[in-house]
C-alpha cells in the first residue's frame, strides 16, 4: 500500500515534549483521590448522615478538578510544543530583493544638501517612506533586502514576513557612509535567489543615487548570474539636479565622472528584462515605485514554514485558571468548627 502523502493538516496535531521525563510525575495527579482534606471539621460519626447526591457530585468534581490541575501542571512542566510545519500557499507577486544604496550621498536631499541624519527629505528617508508603502501594498510578495555602500550588508533574506521587512527598511535611519559600490551589492542580491526554487518572477530593485565602475570580468559574471537565476532588474536612480542623465550621452563622457551612463548601458546590454526610473524629486520616485508595483503580478506557488509553537504557556494559563477556581472554592469553605457555629448563633 502506498504511503499517504503528508499534508499540512495532518501534521497540525504533531505535538512533542521538551522534557518528557516530567511525565514520571503523572501518578501524582491521583493524589487528590486518596489524600485527606487539609481542613476538615471534626464530627462525631458520619454513619448517621444521609447520602446527599449533590454533595457527592460536588466533592468528587472538586477532586477531579484538582487532579486535572495537577495533570495540566505536570504537562506544562514537560514544555509541550507543536512541531514546525510547512504549509503550501498560492500567492500573486514576485520575489523582490531591495538593493538600497546607503552611501553618504543618500543622506542629502535632492538638491544635494545634507540636513542631518534624521532629516525627512533626505533621499534615503524618501526612499524609506516609499519602499515601506510599496511593501505594504504588495501583500503576497517575498521581500529581501541588501543595503550596500562600499561593501554590501546582508540585511534580510527573502521572506514574506511584512513586519521583518518593514523593520529592515526602518533600520536604515542611521547615517549612511562610504561610496556607492554597486557590483558586490548585486552579487549579494543575486545570491538570495540561488537556493530558492523559481516560483514566480524575480526582481532586484536597485535604489541608488549614483553608480560605480564595474570591470569587464565582473560584468560578465553578473550577466551570467542574472541569466542563471532569471532575475529582472529595476533601477530607481535618485538623480541630483547636477548629475548625469541615464539616456542622454553626457558631454564629458568618462567612466569615473559619469559612471551612471555606463552602468545603464551595461544593464541594457545584459539581455535581461531591465527598466530604469529616473527620480529627480519625491513625486518622481513615487511614480517610479508605482510603475514597478504594476509590473509584477504573476501568480506564484510557494511553501511557508510555520515555526514550532510553544504550548507550555497555554497549559500554564489553563492550570492557573483551574487553580483560581479551586482557590475560590476553598475560599468559600468553612474551615474551623468555631466558624461553623458562629455563623449560626
Amino acid at each position, binding site marked *: 500500500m502506498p504511503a499517504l502523502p503528508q499534508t499540512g493538516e495532518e501534521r497540525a496535531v504533531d505535538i512533542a515534549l521538551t522534557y518528557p521525563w516530567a511525565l514520571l510525575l503523572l501518578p501524582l495527579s491521583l493524589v487528590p483521590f486518596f489524600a485527606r*482534606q487539609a481542613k476538615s471539621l471534626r464530627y462525631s*460519626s458520619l454513619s*448517621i*448522615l444521609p447520602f446527599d447526591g449533590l454533595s457527592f457530585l*460536588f466533592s468528587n468534581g472538586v477532586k477531579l478538578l484538582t487532579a486535572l490541575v495537577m495533570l495540566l501542571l505536570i504537562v506544562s512542566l514537560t514544555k509541550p510544543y507543536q512541531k514546525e510545519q510547512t504549509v503550501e500557499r498560492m500567492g500573486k507577486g514576485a520575489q523582490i530583493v531591495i538593493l538600497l544604496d546607503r552611501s553618504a550621498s543618500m543622506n542629502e536631499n535632492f538638491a544635494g544638501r545634507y540636513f542631518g541624519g534624521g532629516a525627512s527629505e533626505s533621499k534615503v528617508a524618501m526612499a524609506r517612506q516609499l519602499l515601506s508603502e510599496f511593501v505594504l501594498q504588495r501583500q503576497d510578495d517575498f521581500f529581501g533586502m541588501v543595503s550596500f555602500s562600499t561593501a554590501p550588508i546582508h540585511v534580510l533574506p527573502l521572506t514574506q514576513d511584512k513586519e521583518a521587512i518593514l523593520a529592515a527598511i526602518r533600520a536604515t535611519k542611521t547615517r549612511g557612509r562610504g561610496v556607492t559600490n554597486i557590483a558586490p551589492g548585486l552579487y549579494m542580491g543575486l545570491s538570495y535567489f540561488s537556493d530558492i526554487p523559481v516560483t514566480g518572477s524575480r526582481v532586484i530593485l536597485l535604489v541608488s543615487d549614483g553608480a560605480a565602475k564595474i570591470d569587464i570580468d565582473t560584468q560578465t559574471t553578473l550577466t551570467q548570474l542574472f541569466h542563471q537565476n532569471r532575475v529582472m532588474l529595476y533601477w530607481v536612480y535618485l538623480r541630483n539636479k547636477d548629475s548625469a542623465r541615464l539616456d542622454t550621452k553626457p558631454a564629458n563622457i568618462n567612466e569615473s565622472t559619469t559612471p551612471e551612463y555606463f552602468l545603464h548601458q551595461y544593464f541594457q546590454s545584459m539581455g535581461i528584462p531591465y527598466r530604469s526610473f529616473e527620480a529627480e524629486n519625491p513625486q518622481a520616485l513615487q511614480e517610479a515605485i508605482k510603475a514597478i508595483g504594476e509590473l509584477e503580478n504573476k501568480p506564484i506557488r510557494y511553501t511557508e514554514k510555520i515555526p514550532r509553537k510553544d504550548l507550555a504557556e497555554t497549559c500554564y494559563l489553563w492550570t492557573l485558571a483551574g487553580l483560581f477556581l479551586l482557590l475560590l472554592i476553598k475560599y468559600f469553605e468553612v474551615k474551623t*468548627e468555631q466558624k461553623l457555629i458562629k455563623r449560626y448563633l
Partner: protein
Amino acid sequence: MIEEFHYQIPWRTSSAHPGRHLGRHSGGEHDFQGHAPLISRPEAHNIDVHASLLDPFQQYVVRTFRQRSVINVTVIADLSASMGFQNKMATLAKFTEQAAYSAARSGDHFGFMGCGADIIPEFYMPPRWYKGGTAELAESLRHYHPASTNAKGLLTVQEYCPRHRSLIFLVSDFHYPLQDIATLFDSLLKHDVIPVVMWHPDEYEQLPEWGLFTLSDPETGREKTLLMRPGLKKKIIQAFNAQREQLKHLFIRNGRQPFYLNDAFEADQMTRYFYEQ
C-alpha cells in the same frame, strides 16, 4: 456547687448493707412487709394489737419489715473518639460528678467505667463509697481527648459490674448500628440500665443552612464534603430523628426510656426523669 439529682428504683435490691432503697432482706422498721406470729418472731415491740385481735388462731401477731439497702450506681461511659465532638467530654464530666455526688448523698456505692476499645484503666473506679474522690475523675474526664476508634470495651463491662442488680447510667452518643446496641443491652440485662444519649445540637439542629465544609469521622477516618443547604439540613435532622425513634424502641424494649444529655443539662431534669417513670 455540685448539683444533685434524686433517683428511684422500681425494684428491690438484694444488697445486705443498710441504705436508702427498697431491699429484699427483712429487718429495719420502715418498710412494712406483713405479719408473723410472735413465737416465730419474738419482737414484742412490734406486736400489732389490731391484727392480734383479728387473728383467727388468737395468737399474738407481730409486724415484720424489710430492710432498706444500698445499691450500686455505676456510670459506664463510651470514650470512643466520636465522644470528642464539641464539649461532650465536659458534659460527661459534669454529669459524672453529679451522679457521684448524688450517690454519695444517698449513701450508695458509686462506680465508673470508661471504655474505648477496652476498659481504660485510668477511668475505672470500682463501686465504693466515694465521698470526695470523684472530683479528680471529673477533672481528668474534662481534659481527656478520646481517640479510640471504637467502643468495643462496652461489651466487656458486664464482667466488672457488681453481682447484684445495680443502677447503671450508660452514657454514649449511640452512633452505632442498632444490632450492636441491642447486644450491649443484652449483656447488661441483669442491671437497670438507663440509656443516657449524648447528642450535641451542633451535630444536626445547629448546622448552618448554607455552607461548604468537609466533616471527618474521628473513628473511621473517612471524610465527607457537604454542600449545605436548607433541604439537606432538613434531611440530616430527619435522619437524626429517625435514629432517635429507633433508639427509643430499642431502649423501651430493654426497660427504660432514654435520657437525652446535652450541654444545657441540669440535675433537676434527671430527678424529673425518675419521677416520670
